[in-house]
């Protein structure tokens, strides 16, 4: 059985990932066992797949819209996102949408051209499992989760951006900041002059 990184441990992978055939046709479905299928297979054989023994999961390719499975998520044991190439960054946005907009709490797996140098960003965007491409040592790759000890921007791993996590913690959003209709100007000529007079 192949291995993968899940929740920062190297574990055996119980899932079989099905791919479309080279000509784009749907692959044969094994009679039993846990499978991760391409979106097209799920969309065309949904009923049969639901009564089949074994757990099911779906993988999205980088051009596919996670909204297509938003209402089916409760049926899946895993959702995977494929990175056809290292440089194709659409999967990072797909992961955030699955986590933050569609509420997927289960295993979110990155597959395809994955190696250690992406792991920090991938995990920040909500992936918690990773099938490394051939030739990569998953044990060695674990260190990459610690590449950075902090991050500025909001992400799945750190929903609050750094500036909302600094101590002392800032107050919750005021109405003014949400609507920005009545807030005073923070900077600029007036703001600067006030600061200067206060000094």
């Amino acid at each position, binding site marked *: 059985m192949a291995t993968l990184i899940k929740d920062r441990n190297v574990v055996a992978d119980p899932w079989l990932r099905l791919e479309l055939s080279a000509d784009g046709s749907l692959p044969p479905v094994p009679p039993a066992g846990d499978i991760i299928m391409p979106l097209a297979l799920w969309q065309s054989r949904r009923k049969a797949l639901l009564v089949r023994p074994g757990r099911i999961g779906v993988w999205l390719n980088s051009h596919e819209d996670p909204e297509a499975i938003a209402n089916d998520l409760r049926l899946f044991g895993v959702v995977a996102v494929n990175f056809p190439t290292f440089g194709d960054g659409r999967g990072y946005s797909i992961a955030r949408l699955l986590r933050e907009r569609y509420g997927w709490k289960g295993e979110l797996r990155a597959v395809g051209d994955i190696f250690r140098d992406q792991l920090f960003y991938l995990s920040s965007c909500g992936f918690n499992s990773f099938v490394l491409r051939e030739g990569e040592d998953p044990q060695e790759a674990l260190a990459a989760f610690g590449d950075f000890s902090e991050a500025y921007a909001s992400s799945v791993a750190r929903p609050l951006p750094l500036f909302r996590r600094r101590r002392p913690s800032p107050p919750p959003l005021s109405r003014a*900041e949400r609507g920005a209709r009545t807030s*005073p*100007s*923070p900077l600029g000529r007036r703001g600067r002059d006030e600061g200067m007079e206060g*000094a």
Partner: protein
Amino acid sequence: MSLLPCRPRGFHRGNEVYRYDEIDQRLVEERVAQFRDQTRRYLAGKLSEDDFRPLRLRNGLYIQRYAPMLRVAIPYGLLSSRQLRTLAHISRKWDRGYGHFSTRQNIQFNWPKLEDTPDILAELARVQMHAIQTSGNSVRNITTDHFAGVARDEIVDSFVWCELLRQWSTLHPEFSYLPRKFKIAVNGTAADRAATYLHDIGLHAVRNKGGTGSDGASPGGEVGFRVIVGGGMGRTPIIGHVMTEFLPWPHLLTYIEAVMRVYNRYGRRDNIHKARIKILVKALTPEQFREDVEAEWAHLKGGPSTLTAEEVRRVEGHFTRPAYVQLAGDDADYTARLASDPGFAAWAKRNVHPHKVPGYAAVTLSLKKTGVPPGDATAEQMDAVADLADRYSQAELRVSHEQNLILADVRQSGLHALWAEAKALGLATPNIGLITNIIACPGGDFCSLANAKSIPVAQAIQERFDDLDYVHDIGELDLNISGCMNSCGHHHVGHIGILGVDKNGEEWYQISIGGNQGLTRPGAPAAVGKVIGPSFAQEQIPDVIEKLIGIYLQKRESEEERFIDVVWRIGIEPFKEHVYGDANQRQERRSRSLAAA
């Protein structure tokens, strides 16, 4: 209004730069360690060339024509003298004793060794600098007006907003593998000196009506940003589209995230030449793109990335501020010397700029001396400029996108002495805004992408226009040269633009006129130049430029009417005729050359 030191007493002099806090420093150091490990794995053969390329690129390391090129970020062009000395030191220790200041307000070293780059980055980290995201398909260095913080027409201090965006974009997990590079510019003054209409995202600070400034002109309204998306130069020059005229400042990050998410998901990835956001905006139409962004933003607006006044003030507080002396007005000695010393006056006219604090001025040190590649500075010059910054300008300086260095806080009483010193260093060419202040990319002498050389062309033009009186008479003129369609030399927005093209393996040059980088004065918006006709050989260029200038001088109605104003008033046809002959002559020439063939 008091103009005495605007920070508590006891604060040490100078350094108007952002000072890292412990976390900023730690992240930069962790990036050095990460890159050191990536380089080690590559050199050990554990990482293939193909895998290492995108990794090194997002840390500014290109493999160039002769050697690697390392691009170091100068965030929004702002440097302390200490940082500049470190750049000089790096160029001496690991390069050939010089650096090239780029049109993106960065500095490039052309000769480092790959295996030395982790050490160079570690040296940079010691002075709070880095090369993060200076290349690759990520958010690049945020650029701004080089007179930020001192301009008289200031709306906000754009440095603060640039730094907020720098932090937000640095190591952004979702937007580090975009379809293509992504450039953001922020402008904080009434005039647009940041070319906001020619960036992937341009942000122009505005005050809305309301508050006490109901006329909209006086301060009193709230601060927000005009958001312009999808402008750019390169192969397909496009003037950006206004997405919203007024985005209240707390929403800055969430709105930009919405723009970037739409781009990251739907921008083209099949063709590198069609992958910039401008192509997506054009394909969808700006109206549809705006709707898509609004739909995405509806989910993000008011979320945790919404900026707080406290955070803006915190970042503002990390900038040191110049300690200005309260002065009544213009310095009497300065005014007297302007009248008595014509050489000084000529320099002051072009290279000294107004300052919002009475008795102070901003000064451009020109890196455009004839015979020197535009933007190049030697280690000795860098050290000397650092010294000038210490003694005349509160230990701080800026890099302009026109590839010059700016001392932004000089007391008028020191200008004459500064001029004398700058002159001795070869940094006082009085040509800012004039034809010889050429913007040029490194071109075919250094860059592996270039079709043609840029630097010898710039030099030939500077040599042709070596009569200073004539150059001053020609007046304001931006002449920009790019060695290829990537347009690093901003040729599209030069009043005169020169583009290197490849014709059957030979270097030729296409000329355009009528471009403009942005609303630097009323009524002169950003514009893309028009090509005047077939391209020229390198040795013809000075003649062609002289002809263009000749027709301009003949047609201008007054000395106030600049070259660009005349092009816009009479169109390109008279210029074309003067260069190529009229339509009949052109037809005749074509027939002759056909007959000869």
